[in-house]
């Protein structure tokens, strides 16, 4: 199926620092999502993004989180500042025509 890439695959960061997770979505897709999965647990929706705007966000999408896709480049999730509870795997998803395709995830560890 269509490939969604995520960079980096792993990130270790000290609490309080900023982190940016990068997603390279499918080229002709227009809808983008971030999900969070804590180890061994359910996948949970964070935010979706269309036409340069946040369309919907969950309670997990704290004020410290932001998303953007400047000039059609990477779709990014920025966390500033990070907290211990932000440790998780973050998945980006890309949607063109209803079906969502997921990247391999970025494992974020906040120390």
């Amino acid at each position, binding site marked *: 199926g269509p490939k969604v890439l995520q960079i980096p695959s792993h990130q270790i960061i000290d609490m309080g620092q900023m982190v940016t997770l990068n997603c390279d979505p499918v080229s002709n897709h227009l809808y983008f*999502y971030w*999900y969070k999965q804590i180890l061994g647990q*359910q996948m949970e*929706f964070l935010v979706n993004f269309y036409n340069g705007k946040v369309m*919907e966000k*969950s309670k997990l999408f704290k004020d410290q989180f932001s998303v953007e896709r400047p000039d059609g480049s990477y779709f990014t999730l920025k966390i500033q500042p990070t907290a211990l509870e932000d440790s998780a795997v973050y998945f980006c998803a890309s949607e063109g025509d*209803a079906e969502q395709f*997921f990247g391999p*995830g970025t494992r974020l560890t906040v120390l």
Partner: protein
Amino acid sequence: GDQVEQSPSALSLHEGTGSALRCNFTTTMRAVQWFQQNSRGSLINLFYLASGTKENGRLKSTFNSKESYSTLHIRDAQLEDSGTYFCAAEGANTGKLTFGHGTILRVHP
């Protein structure tokens, strides 16, 4: 409570046998996707259904929006089918996917 209730939470199958996973929805959903999460954590798309039944090899999935459930049938299970299977449903007025808690499938010789 959870909008997506997935069962069973764990399943053990002998090679060559089969079984079914089920997701019940507590609200109206307009589509469902099924994924396999492999040992590396990657989500593999298995099915997308807005209604009806689809089949792909040894897998078959059904989505009944009126009765609010979806099933994934696996037949002739192989060792490489082991992993965690998730259903995820799209609500009527949202693009977000709400995931089930997953089914850990282990296929053994």
